[in-house]
């Protein structure tokens, strides 16, 4: 099973130590080996289940209900500047 741990870790934004990398490589290899069994199931005529209940068309009304959480969230934020959240400089998009 090919499992490019570094690529996946980068996608997930998690840095791994070399030890972690080795351990996870083997753990995930074993798990992926186990789930290989799914490949033997014929699902050519089967649709996917994304939801277990048959609910459709759930909407809310277009009404504004102000929330008062932002001040508290900002106060507790890891870093802020006035009323803004603050992060390391991003690349201009």
């Amino acid at each position: 099973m090919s499992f490019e741990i570094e690529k996946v870790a980068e996608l997930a934004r998690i840095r791994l130590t070399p030890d972690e990398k080795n351990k996870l490589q083997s753990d995930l290899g074993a798990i992926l080996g186990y789930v290989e069994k799914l490949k033997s199931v014929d699902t050519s005529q089967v649709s996917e289940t994304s939801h277990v209940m048959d609910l459709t068309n759930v909407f809310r009304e277009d009404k504004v209900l102000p929330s008062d959480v932002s001040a508290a969230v900002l106060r507790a934020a890891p870093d802020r500047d006035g009323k803004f959240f603050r992060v390391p400089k991003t690349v201009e998009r």
Partner: protein
Amino acid sequence: MTTVYEAVIGLEVHVQLDTHSKIFCACSTKFGSEPNANTCPVCLGLPGSLPVLNGQALHLAVKVGIALNCEISKRLKFDRKNYFYPDLPKAYQISQFDQPVNGAGWLLIETRSEDGSWKEKKIGIHRAHLEEDAGKLLHEGIEGASLVDFNRAGVPLLEIVSDPDLSSPEEAYAYLTSLKAILQYLEVSDCNMEEGSLRCDANVSIRKRGDKNLGTKTEIKNLNSFKNVQRAIQYEIERQTELVEGGGRVIQETRLWNDVKAQTFVMRSKEQAHDYRYFPEPDLVPLTIESAAIEAIRKELPELPAAKAARFRKDYGLGDYDASVLVQEKALAAYFEQAIKAHANAKMISNWMQSELLALLNSKKLAIQSSPVSAQALAGLVALIESGTISGKIAKDVLPVMFETGQTAQEVVREKGWVQVTDESLIETIADKIIADNSQSVQDYRAGKKQALGFLVGQMMKASQGKVNPKLANEVLARKIGV
């Protein structure tokens, strides 16, 4: 651009749907609030919060779909698009991947053909899907940091993706104008580019004329006006052509338009290729849209610009160009129709609107809705010209006064004493004086120099400060000195 290459252009337009509250929470979509004031656990992505779809956002999206002749999906769903960025609170954007609300459709643009005439061109719409907007990042003047405001996060967007059917910067401009007109007619968005409620990215490539395969495209971002879309595409076509002609190759990349330098620049490349890991959003249930619901929405649709233009041509005998200018804005078309209701001379009203009135409005940066000259007032002015009460020349002086004071044409004309002289005895008196003072010209005329009559009429106009009806002056003079 040389004639060897042709451009292939597709546009992605993000338009903010005009709802009161955000797409998945009850926060206000109001522009210009204090930073992070319009936020709640849902749009801040706080742990444990869940999205619930604003039905109005879907309703507006379907409206656009119908107007753009799209196939409306009977069954649709939302998906998560996963990536990390500080303006994206949940590290995924709720969007639509493989079941967009609106499938393939088209819209018409007016494009100038090589002989200079205007013709219609059908531009394919690839799809249009609903999604939530991200927050806003501020970089300027902050050392080593960026600041995040989540007021925009969760604002409903419709991303409208065109087919690569556009072949010039002018067509791209025409597409945007046409699309904006439709969106404004539908009243689904204010399409305000400054406030970010309409944004556009352009995909540009070139290929040898006649080639079936598409060339490598670049994506241009940071386009903040329709004019800049046009300029950036023009620049990009030239850049790519030069590159290819010099033996180089176009690289697939995202480029940013720099307005000041009038150039596109490569965006600093991302750390890695994107892999958005789309999957169905488990927190939102699927949606179904019945045909009857689509038909009901179709009935709500107003007359759209293309249909209105066709009607203006047919019912009022307007030319293609005049009709297309008048329907560009719903309010302009409404003004026109109000005016001709008051005075049924479509051609003259159209001319007076397009030449004089729009110039006055532009000079004051006013929209037609706030014109100091009402449609009825403009019709009144045209009626005075047609009845011969004032000349067209005088009318050009009357309109600015109306614009300034809000008076009707009649009021202005009366106050200024600009009423045309149509009293024949008065005209004869003036004519006698002019004949006496210009015997040389009278002789010339009698000797067969017909243009001398024009000079004499001119003298009469001058003597009457332009108030003499030129037609009558002509008749009276010809009779008096006629041979």
